[in-house]
């Protein structure tokens, strides 16, 4: 009986692995998870933490990618403020410090850059954004994070009193991708599903 159950679990696992890598299943799931709202001008752009810095104090790829998305939105004139968040840990500078540096290097004026230095989770980031942006009268923000994480992040920011627009506006269903890339997307989908469940159990959502 136990052997049969193990075989069934294994067969389902192998089947899912093949379906994820070699069919557009994960593309559809990812598209379905991403909230949609027309991209429009807002009062601030909030770039959520993503990945941190390496041992040399350089932003990793995901963190830099998110920041560049925020910088691009700022340059397009979609909001006058850029609030950057990130992991507060790092021996040669933190993600937030490096993101602020890179934003300045990209030509964003000092007074337009705001930093959130102590947030460790998305829940912390929503609360931190309220503390920083609330007194400035900011209510409508453009949120920059992964498509898979956007649903949970948007819900948290809306609970914190913001009117939220996802940075990508309306998601686009993309059919392509290598099996490895699709597997990466599937991993983020699973992590996000687990995080959403935890946030609901913890009463954050």
């Amino acid at each position, binding site marked *: 009986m136990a052997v049969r159950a*193990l*075989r069934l*679990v*294994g067969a389902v*696992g*192998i089947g899912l692995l093949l379906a994820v890598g*070699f069919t557009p299943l994960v593309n559809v799931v990812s598209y379905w998870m991403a909230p949609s709202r027309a991209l429009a001008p807002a009062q601030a752009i909030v770039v959520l933490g993503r990945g941190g810095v390496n041992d040399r104090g350089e932003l990793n790829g995901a963190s830099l990618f998110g920041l560049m998305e925020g910088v691009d939105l700022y340059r397009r004139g979609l909001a006058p403020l850029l609030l950057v968040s990130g992991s507060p840990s790092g021996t040669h500078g933190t993600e937030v410090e490096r993101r602020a540096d890179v934003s300045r290097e990209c030509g964003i004026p000092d007074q337009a850059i705001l930093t959130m230095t102590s947030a*460790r989770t998305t829940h912390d980031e929503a609360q931190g954004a309220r503390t920083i942006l609330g007194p400035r009268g900011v209510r409508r923000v453009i949120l920059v994070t992964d498509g898979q994480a956007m649903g949970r992040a948007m819900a948290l920011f809306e609970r914190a009193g913001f009117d939220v627009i996802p940075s990508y506006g309306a998601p686009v269903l993309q059919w392509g991708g290598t*099996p490895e890339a699709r597997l990466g997307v599937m991993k983020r989908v699973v*992590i996000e599903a687990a995080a959403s469940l935890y946030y609901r159990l913890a009463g954050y959502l």
Partner: protein
Amino acid sequence: MAPLFLLVVAALTSAGACAVGVRWLGLRRDRLGPAVLGLCQLAGVALVFLALNVALGLAIVFLARGVLRVFVSVYVLDDVYLPLLSAIQAVIFESWRGLRAAR
């Protein structure tokens, strides 16, 4: 195109392995089905180990946060080596079980 190419390559080497197995190693075609079932069983054990590893890892992370007041990110578990280690655990465990059955 790239996914299809990978599948074609794997199908060709599988066909080659079948031919070599039957022709030179004396393997029986009718034992291929049970071999696939064995793979499913191994994958099942690996998934059980993965679930246990994730569950224990999460418990330690939340224990550290709740009791020790030390922030540990759950993303420490987000590493490709966790499924690989789980697969190694499964292979060793199944080999161990196989040795007992053969004795």
